[in-house]
């Protein structure tokens, strides 16, 4: 029984597997990633099984999720951007379901590790760079040269724009990672306060109600943040893909 807020982020090997000296163990992180994929797939596949023209409640929920992400992508990247819809929808569903799985007590939050969010963010940025270069050739670098800039300022503006582009994968990954990390640490810290106050006898137990109410409110906030961070990841991905499709401001 751990009483510090960091223990929840520890990787534990559930099934140790070693192939040729490389560690391929099935960890708690791998378990929850599998559960994330299973839950997202089950929701979408089973809800749409009936294929009714007049949708049932579950099918309606699946269709609303689809339309929500499709609308976001279409608005940000245009109708040409819809070719990236499977990519963006997968990212959105993975982040959303992984964040929501982490809300249950004692469950592991997959997205609270920088390696997971950095992998997704690198996938997005590499897609942007390579697709942008493949499609626009050298016109892609128009992205760093905004229109209507006096020639005197141009060198400085280009450097700043390049730095701003390089900071995109960093901020994209750290935003999701830090939100999940900070949220869960705060929850555990308040839970620790409940236990600490409760050990002071009857008056302590009465006082422990306050951090308990705070923990309940924080849990509600964490649900909001879980959904919000998935939406923000999706919309930023859509905006970056728009830059790959239509470079130049």
């Amino acid at each position, binding site marked *: 029984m751990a009483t510090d807020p*960091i223990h929840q982020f520890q990787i534990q090997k559930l099934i140790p597997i070693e192939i040729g000296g490389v560690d391929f163990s099935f960890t708690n992180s791998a378990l929850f990633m599998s559960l994330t994929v299973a839950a997202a797939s089950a929701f979408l596949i089973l809800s749409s099984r009936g294929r009714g023209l007049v949708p049932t409640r579950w099918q309606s929920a699946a269709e609303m999720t689809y339309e929500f992400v499709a609308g*976001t992508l279409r*608005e940000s990247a245009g109708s040409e951007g819809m070719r990236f819809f499977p990519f963006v929808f997968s990212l959105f569903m993975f982040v959303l379901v992984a964040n929501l799985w982490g809300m249950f007590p004692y469950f592991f939050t997959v997205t609270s590790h920088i390696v997971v969010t950095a992998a997704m963010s690198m996938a997005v940025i590499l897609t942007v760079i390579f697709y942008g270069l493949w499609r626009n050739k050298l016109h892609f670098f128009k992205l760093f040269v905004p229109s209507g800039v006096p020639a005197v300022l141009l060198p400085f503006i280009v450097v700043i724009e390049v730095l701003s582009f390089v900071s995109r994968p960093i*901020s994209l990954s*750290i*935003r999701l990672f*830090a*939100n999940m*990390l*900070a949220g869960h*640490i705060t929850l555990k810290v308040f839970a620790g306060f409940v236990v600490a106050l409760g050990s002071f006898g009857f008056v302590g137990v009465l006082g422990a109600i306050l951090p308990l109410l705070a923990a309940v409110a924080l849990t509600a906030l964490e649900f909001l943040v879980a959904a*919000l*961070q998935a*939406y*923000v990841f999706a*919309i930023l991905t859509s905006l970056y893909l728009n830059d790959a499709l239509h470079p130049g401001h």
Partner: protein
Amino acid sequence: MEAEAAQFIGAGIACIGMGTAGVGLGHIFGNYLAGAIRNPAAADGQFGRLIFGFAVTEAMGIFSLLVALILLFG
């Protein structure tokens, strides 16, 4: 000064960043409410941008919290 003491002081200073992020968030939502009261019909259409602006501003506050946590627990 010992490294551990400096860690705690640094974590406290990093929390100032969260206060300034709070100022930014209040600015965003205040402007949205001011506009929504003037033109309620247009408010719902801009809700998505409001949430996006909230999330990227909140991210800066969270980055400073991350620095504080790294100082405390890293």
